């Protein structure tokens, strides 16, 4: 088991940061993902969009190694996810019990527990990493604050700091902007851009098509299968959106181009861990 050594699996610098080859995931008789193939290169930033139950969570779980593909292969820098501790996972905020007794510092230190390894305690280097991560998200002054006292935007920044402390190279973010006000959203975006400039690769699930198109150089449109993947202007067309959303999509002619309405107000189709 990897955590006994605290080392990440070896990275092949030539290989893409993330690749999926013909990945199919079934739960019993239900097919959650079918024959999905794509490549993300180091530093890429991709939004994942699709209707509720389209398999966004399953896709993330397969990348993180939480569910095993029924068929096909997932590779992170050339090898399967099982032994990588470089995958940062930023869960939806409402999946966490914020009454948990931990300070901001404690919550960020949790990201280092893979590197620290079993039967060891955090040393000075670990504490410096945590402080550095908190400084990068402008939260150093709140290090001793209980996590229960934070605002939504601050909670999201704690998770980002946790991924930074983990030295994550591939970041999976599940609806990171939901429920945040505009300044918090901007703050998170700035941090994400800084991370990518430093070589991190991002995969961001969002229900907001407009946001996906405006903020991300790459968009992945899924509904069980991968419908389209590429720059937003090629992916977010009325034809592909029609295929992804079907009857749940309404296209209304507007003054400039078309207005697209979908029903994906809330994320769903969540798969429990394991």
């Amino acid at each position, binding site marked *: *088991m*990897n955590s006994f050594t605290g080392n990440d699996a070896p990275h092949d610098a030539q290989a893409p940061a993330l690749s999926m080859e013909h990945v199919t995931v079934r739960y019993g008789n239900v097919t959650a993902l079918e024959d999905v193939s794509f490549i993300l290169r180091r530093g890429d930033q991709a939004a994942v969009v699709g209707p509720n139950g389209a398999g966004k969570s399953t896709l993330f779980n397969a990348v993180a190694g*939480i569910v095993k593909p029924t068929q096909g292969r997932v590779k992170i820098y050339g090898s399967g996810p099982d032994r990588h501790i470089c995958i940062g996972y930023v869960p939806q905020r409402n999946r966490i*019990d914020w009454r948990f007794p931990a300070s901001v510092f404690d919550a960020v230190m949790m990201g280092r527990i893979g590197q620290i390894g079993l039967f060891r305690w955090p040393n000075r280097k670990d504490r410096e990493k945590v402080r550095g991560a908190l400084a990068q998200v402008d939260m150093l002054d709140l290090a001793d604050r209980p996590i229960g006292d934070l605002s939504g935007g601050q909670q999201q920044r704690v998770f980002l700091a946790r991924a930074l402390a983990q030295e994550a190279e591939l970041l999976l973010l599940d609806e990171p902007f939901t429920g945040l006000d505009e300044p918090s959203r901007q703050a998170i975006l700035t941090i994400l851009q800084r991370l990518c400039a430093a070589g991190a690769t991002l995969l961001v699930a969002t229900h907001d098509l407009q946001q996906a198109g405006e903020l991300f150089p790459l968009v992945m449109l899924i509904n069980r299968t991968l419908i389209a993947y590429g720059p937003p202007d090629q992916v977010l067309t009325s034809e592909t959106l029609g295929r992804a959303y079907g009857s749940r999509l309404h296209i209304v002619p507007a003054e400039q181009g078309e207005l697209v309405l979908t029903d994906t107000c809330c994320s769903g189709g969540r798969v429990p861990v394991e």
Partner: protein
Amino acid sequence: MFEWLLEPLQYGFMWRALLASAMTGVICSVIGVYVILQGMAFFGDALAHIILPGIVVAYLVGWPLAVGALIVGIIAALGIGALSRRGELREDTAIGIVFAGSFALGVALLSTVSTYAVDLSHILFGNVLAVSAQDLWVIGGLGLLVLLTVGAFYKEFMVLAFDATLAVVLRLPATFLRYLLLVLIAVTIVVALQTVGIALMLAMLVTPAATAQLLTRRLWRMMLLAAAIGSLSNITGLYVSYYINIASGPAMVLVMTAVFLAVFLLRSGRNRLMENGDTARNAA
């Protein structure tokens, strides 16, 4: 005051009862922190009842009761863990079935014994005044094992309780840790058997930890506080039972419940005062 404290200590059984109560309070409260953070109160209550047939069989064949309880407790903990992972039944349904069935089996077995009523009440509500020197060694030994394990896996258990997905992504041995925690709860229940018995076990696991959660928001402080609250409540309860002549297990549970209520009311009173203060400031 001192005489009042010292008088019961002239009896050897009171010394042993005090030691057993204090140790039980510490161990139950520390494990109890995980029980409440992971929402496992029902599991804890069920497991305490499930071990009854193990105790009765050990009693009938003349083994130490702790051995029978430990064997059944560990098997049941692992069995429930496996059953709920298959996902055909809701976890609480699966626990409920095993809980009631096993408890019924235990009572049925015990009803074959002529001293049925007395024995049952001791098993249900504990009999801390009958703790032997050997029992103290068992409590101390198992308790130390539990505390050392919690210490060794402190940060891993913390991640598992806070964010199970993170535990998997960090490649922690999540399944092993989950089963380990279930076994620790089973061992803790065996430790507390003599002091509070089966029926009131849940209070030991839940109440001091819940009181501590009201008072602090750091995990290690919550554990220390819970341990202090648990052991002091038990000692106080023992004195109360000595002086007003009530059963010791219920006395301990009543003390810790009173402590919880006092902390809860003081806190909500203070919060209301602070809110009023804010309103007053805002109005000014």
